[in-house]
């Protein structure tokens, strides 16, 4: 069955902002889907609120709505665009849930829209706990003893009387397992079950017998409407059942299964997709008893997922593309395998290497977050590595994760006594793999480690190989045999030198092997490679065979997604590659993130899936011998390669290494500013607490403190008192050696303004000036950002444009530059200059229609900006206002303080685009998930310095008819200013009637909370904010945001009033 002839116009629903559990993998899948559909001549209508994606790029769809992903708005898009079909299974959980709601309400039918991909029956059978269980029972597939309940009482009865503890709670219809957890006793059951019921949109949870410790095995399956079904890939979690697969170290293929067990689970996976009637991709998760054939189906996701992205990258099999073709009528035997170009998609990939996926957690940013891992995913991103041995893939994954580690030795564990290491084995957290490694080093027997962790002995033996290798190295013997063994196990020369204490006498550059879906059985055309240490170099052969005669440019990617370095950089890298290709160059990508578009093998001319360290990069340079490199689009990951590339004489396109250094080095940067005649906030460099106090008092509080080595706002604070300075210097002393100074700046509480510019060394083009709603002090990534700036005078705008030009020329920027200014008392100060791409590039490109990365790439290749047709200076405003609203994943991260500050906390963003500022903000807020309830209660508790300022905000809420509550200090100020406010007690004052019980009561809809101190979970202010997150309330931690919300509420407009905008028409 080829393409259905009743499909002409398809609506694709995206997955929305990046949050923990639903991240960049859906940009990858969505982009593949859109391309696959357009390839077939179909018109694609897209809705996705996430502006940072490739998917929402104008080239990806015929109509693009960057609008809130709410049911009503999707309905309006359908009414407006009249698609004949909608695809359900490519937009993550968000897309699946929305499609299902549309279908169930009869909306699709009444509008003559067909549902493609997974059908509502399929979705229900997979997602509704009881239906799922019934379906599994009907085909004889075992499930874990469990019961679906809708009340806490039923949950307690079932566990106490039937299955006993421990139990796992899984809320229905939440993504990434939000709100789930393992309860060991009644108290924790009460807590988790209550939260789960609240988070489930249908107030339903599954209470199930805990099978922690069983093997966790996944199969990615694809089925078509004819009933052809294949398993693309098996995967085994190193971490047994109990840790969310998104937080587990995962290997592909499954390694500890005999053919009997493998066949049993493969068959089960195929039975399941047939029973569910899946048409497209499906992820099946199993728990397998480690010592019997007993197994249970844990979960089935009838859609593309993070695991399917991983399976795609692990095998080369493009699951999302194939799923899209199936959705529009093709069957597997009609779809060509793009990897070989000669065989069909109806086969099961055979792989001849190991794949390891390693999660990247945000605990470096959230130092007080609970690091415990369980059924709630906490990782923001991941890396994948490919190797010819497990050891090699593991070591590559560790160094690729950018944890400042190149082995499994975690320095802080070295000091701990053996018994502590032994007891740490039982802690299930992000550092367990390092504890296991340390335990092996201490000679703790594998049996003991297995007993404590239930990690299969296979993995432990493999890790022990690394322990033994490192022991041999430490003995100082570094002969040829050991050197090559270590290279084959993934070690860098620099690591070997450190571990053995001597410089290796040999150097072996890597050879590259191809990822081809078929273990070399067929000749393949995929330009997808990974490094190893064999003699045959398939990449070199490939390059020689192609012999394109074109100049070659390598683009370095951004590695794993983490807070502060998100999908935006992938957007930029992909655009750079496209621009290079378009302008006659061969573009080569190096990256190790399996979730992204950049690591799709047909994005660049060649893809190297390897870590982004100097040595790894050197190996690639040895084989590729490129003409130049690009570092400015891959975030800090790529930027930090600059100095090295410069040293070895590798030409870097665009801004030079020296200029990048001048922007990063404080002293040099001060000189730059002086040369430009631009002021920056006064500041100094200190080493000791005493110096810090002296400088802070000289500058006057508040002051901004940060370590000199740090980027992206990490470990930055605003100090209001001497006490803050002392505490901070104490924390820093514990984290770094004293050679690295601390920078103190006067903190100017002004308006923050951000500018992205394209520069060619002489001219510059500023697509737009953005203004932040929150004053300086909130990290730019966490601020609501407005384009164009709303409150700047023409004169100030002109000065900002002028300053930007001066900086661009002084720093000799060629390519992109991002500048952050603060406007304070009508004076403009520079906070930071980054001569590279920034997180605002994608959305500004889309809103202004200036293809920023394309232009930047062209000037880097030598073209002059003034010849490119977009003019120079400030680009004229096109008439639309865009408001970028940050998205946080606080509900996934326990104990993290939600108060915004100089350290970035958001994981993603949404955009509101409209003709007016108010409407754009309204859209942005709705898209961010805020309920924007127009009545109810507001709890206010702010720090002393803001008590006066909060009066007018409180007044606005009062005028709107809200009931006001406040803690005593804030209430005093409000009441004495004639704003009626109820006083709320602290927990210590009244355990039964306090701010926490108030939040539980449902009387409060908004919380405005700021405090001089935060972070530490035991503080009352942090407890309030956490409670608000847990109750799903809108929690505003900046008065500016609170004020903006109040003003939007005062317009009495809501989602019904917004005008839909197709951004391809802007």
């Amino acid at each position, binding site marked *: 069955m080829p393409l259905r002839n009743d499909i002409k116009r398809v609506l694709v629903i995206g997955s929305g902002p990046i949050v923990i559990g639903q991240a960049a993998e859906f940009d990858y899948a969505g982009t593949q889907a859109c391309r696959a559909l357009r390839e077939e001549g179909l018109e694609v209508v897209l809705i996705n609120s996430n502006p940072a994606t490739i998917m929402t790029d104008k080239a990806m769809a015929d109509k693009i709505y960057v609008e809130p992903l709410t049911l009503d708005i999707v309905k309006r898009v359908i009414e407006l665009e009249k698609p004949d079909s909608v695809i359900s299974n490519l937009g993550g959980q968000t897309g699946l849930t929305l499609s299902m709601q549309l279908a169930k309400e009869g909306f699709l039918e009444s509008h003559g829209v067909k549902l493609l991909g997974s059908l509502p029956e399929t979705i229900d059978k997979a997602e509704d706990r009881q239906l799922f269980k019934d379906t599994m029972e009907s085909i004889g597939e075992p499930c874990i003893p469990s019961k679906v309940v809708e009340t806490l009482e039923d949950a307690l009865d079932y566990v106490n009387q039937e299955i006993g503890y421990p139990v796992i709670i899984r809320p229905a219809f939440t993504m990434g397992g939000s709100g789930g957890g393992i309860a060991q006793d009644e108290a924790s059951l009460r807590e988790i079950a209550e939260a789960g019921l609240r988070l489930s949109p249908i107030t339903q949870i599954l209470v199930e017998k805990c099978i922690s410790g069983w093997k966790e095995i996944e199969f990615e399956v694809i089925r078509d409407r004819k009933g*052809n079904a294949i398993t693309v890939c098996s995967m085994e979690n190193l971490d047994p059942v109990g840790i969310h697969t998104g937080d587990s170290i995962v290997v592909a*293929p499954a390694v*500890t*299964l*005999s053919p009997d067990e493998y066949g049993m689970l493969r*068959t089960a996976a195929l039975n399941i997709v047939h029973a569910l009637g899946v048409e497209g991709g499906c992820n099946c998760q199993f728990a397998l008893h480690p010592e019997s054939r007993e197994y249970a189906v844990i979960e089935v996701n009838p859609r593309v997922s993070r695991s399917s992205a991983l399976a795609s990258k692990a095998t080369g099999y493009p699951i999302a593309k194939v799923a899209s073709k199936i959705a529009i009528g093709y069957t597997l035997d009609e779809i060509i395998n793009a990897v070989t170009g000669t065989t069909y998609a109806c*086969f099961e990939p*055979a792989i001849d290497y190991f794949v390891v996926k390693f999660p990247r957690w945000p605990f470096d940013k959230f130092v007080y977050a609970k690091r415990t891992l369980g059924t709630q995913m906490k990782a923001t991103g991941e890396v994948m590595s490919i190797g010819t041995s497990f050891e090699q893939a593991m070591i590559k994954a560790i160094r690729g994760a950018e944890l400042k580690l190149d082995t499994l030795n975690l320095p802080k564990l070295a000091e701990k006594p053996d018994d502590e290491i032994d007891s740490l084995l039982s802690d299930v957290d992000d550092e367990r793999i390092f504890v296991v490694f340390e335990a092996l080093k201490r000679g703790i027997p594998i049996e003991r480690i297995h007993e404590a962790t239930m990690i299969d002995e296979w993995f432990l033996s493999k890790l022990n190989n690394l322990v033994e290798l490192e022991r041999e190295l430490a003995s100082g013997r570094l002969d040829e045999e050991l050197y090559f063994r270590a290279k084959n196990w993934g070690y860098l020369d620099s690591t070997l030198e450190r571990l053995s204490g001597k410089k290796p006498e040999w150097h072996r550059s890597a050879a590259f092997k191809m990822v081809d879906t078929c273990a070399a059985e067929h000749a393949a055309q995929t330009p997808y490679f990974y490094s190893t240490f*064999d003699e045959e170099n398939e990449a070199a052969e490939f390059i020689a065979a192609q012999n394109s005669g074109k100049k070659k440019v390598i683009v370095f990617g951004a590695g794993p997604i983490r807070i502060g370095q998100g999908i935006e950089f992938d957007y930029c890298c992909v655009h750079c590659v496209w621009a290079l290709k378009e302008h006659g160059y061969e573009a080569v990508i190096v990256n190790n993130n399996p979730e992204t578009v950049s690591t799709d093998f047909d994005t660049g001319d060649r893809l190297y899936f390897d870590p982004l360290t100097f040595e790894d990069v050197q190996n690639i340079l040895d084989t590729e011998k490129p003409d130049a490199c690009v570092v400015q689009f891959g975030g800090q990951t790529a930027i930090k390669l600059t100095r090295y590339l410069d040293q070895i004489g590798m030409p870097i396109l665009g801004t030079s290494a020296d200029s990048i250094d001048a922007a990063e080095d404080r002293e040099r940067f001060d000189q730059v500013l002086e040369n430009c005649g631009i002021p920056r906030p006064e500041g100094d460099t200190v080493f000791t607490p005493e110096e810090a106090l002296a400088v802070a008092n000289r500058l006057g509080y508040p002051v901004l403190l940060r370590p000199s080595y740090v980027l992206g706002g990490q470990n930055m604070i605003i100090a209001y008192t001497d006490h803050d300075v002392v505490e901070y210097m104490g924390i820093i002393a514990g984290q770094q050696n004293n050679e690295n100074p601390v920078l103190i700046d006067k903190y100017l509480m002004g308006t923050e303004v951000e500018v992205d510019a394209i520069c060619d060394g002489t001219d510059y083009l500023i697509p737009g000036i953005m203004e932040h709603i929150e004053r300086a002090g909130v990290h730019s990534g966490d601020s609501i950002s407005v384009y164009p700036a709303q409150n700047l005078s023409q004169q100030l705008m002109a000065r900002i444009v002028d300053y930007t030009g001066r900086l661009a020329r002084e720093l000799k920027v060629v390519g992109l530059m991002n500048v952050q200014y603060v406007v304070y008392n009508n004076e403009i100060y520079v906070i930071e200059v980054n001569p590279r791409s920034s997180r605002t590039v994608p959305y500004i490109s889309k809103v202004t229609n200036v293809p920023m990365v394309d232009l930047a790439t062209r000037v880097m290749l030598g073209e002059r900006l003034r010849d490119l047709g977009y003019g120079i200076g400030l680009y004229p405003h096109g008439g639309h206002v865009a408001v970028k609203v940050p998205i946080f994943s606080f509900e996934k991260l326990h104990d993290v303080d939600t108060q915004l500050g100089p350290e970035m906390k958001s994981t993603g963003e949404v955009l509101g685009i409209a003709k007016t500022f108010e409407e754009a903000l309204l859209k942005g807020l709705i898209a961010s998930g805020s309920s924007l309830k127009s009545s109810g209660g507001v709890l206010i508790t702010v720090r002393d310095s803001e008590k006066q300022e909060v009066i007018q905000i409180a007044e606005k809420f009062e005028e709107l008819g809200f009931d006001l509550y406040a803690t005593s200090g804030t209430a005093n100020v409000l009441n004495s200013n004639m704003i009626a406010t109820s006083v709320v007690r602290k927990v210590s004052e009244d355990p039964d009637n306090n701010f926490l019980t108030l939040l539980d009561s449902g009387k409060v809809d908004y919380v405005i909370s700021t405090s001089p101190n935060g972070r530490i979970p035991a503080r009352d202010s942090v407890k309030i904010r956490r409670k608000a997150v847990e109750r799903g309330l809108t929690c505003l931690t900046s008065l500016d945001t609170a004020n903006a919300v109040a003003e939007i509420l005062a317009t009495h407009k809501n989602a019904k009033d917004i005008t839909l905008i197709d951004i391809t028409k802007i």
Partner: protein
Amino acid sequence: MNENQTVLLLADGTEFFGKPMGAAGKAVGTVVFHTGMVGYQENLVSPSNSGLLLAQTFPLIGNYGVIDGKSAPVRAGGYIVREICASPSNYRCEGKLEDFLRDGQVVGICGVDTRRLTRHIREKGEMTGMIFSGSGYDREALLEELSGWHPVFAPEMQAARPAEVPGAKKTAAVLGEFTPGMQALFARRQVQPACFGWDTPAEEILRLKPDGLLLSDGIGDPTAFPGRVKQVQALLEQELPVFGIGLGHQLLALAKGMEVCRMKCGHRGANQPVYCPVDGRTYITAQNHGFVVKSVHDGGEIRFENANDHTVEGLSYRDIPAFSVQFLPDTMPGTQSTSYLYDEFFGLLGEG
């Protein structure tokens, strides 16, 4: 080459140096690669791999050790892997694969870049090779030896002794390989298998008055034994229902006057897609063969074809109640893709 090394020498002179594994010594055979990621033990004991120098494309072999190692002896002539797992893990693991190889007298080599080997064979075709370990490696002399070597198939393997199927109403004669999975399928359908070697005279088989005939898989080049083809022809005269699998499929085709030829590169793996024009479905099948039915005349109809290279994967015959497949249909309980072929065969017995 030093004493601790082992070499895989191909007839075209290509060398792969590695380390010894399993038994020491010398093994000569046709070098083939297998792309399955699990199932190494099954490969080693499979009669159709008898005498072959078998390379695994998955880089680490032996992960779950050896399970039920006494059930069947090793038949592969030599074994080639990248890495052999020193610490296998599985609750049913009885021992290490390396010990199993040593006990089975299989000469092996590890440390080989099996992907390079696979690419080489893919391009040049399956060829004779030698695994050599120990001292006195003389490349030229060994190449000379290889050039004069021709595959000699192991003598007829002993016929299996299937268990009694209680309450069996039908009997099927089985020639060639008979696996435990087949036994289970026969038992479920209450058909008594009677197993014979390929060289058993037709009269002896027919004396049992079987209701049907399963020509199963077996060793090597089907054209090398014209006597077997004649024997199949004799059996066909009885117009019994016939089901051919693997080698049996090829012998059936030869018996019906079709041509069978050697493939440049065999199908050996668990992921071969096979298209069935009858129901329009594509099935993922396990295969292990280096010969293929080349020309199909009017008497036969293509029932399955390989979705990748379009080679013949299954035939049904117009003039006799016979059908056959080149792939190995699933025999594991619960698999629903191609085990229906057995049911079809058993169904034919009832009609007979």
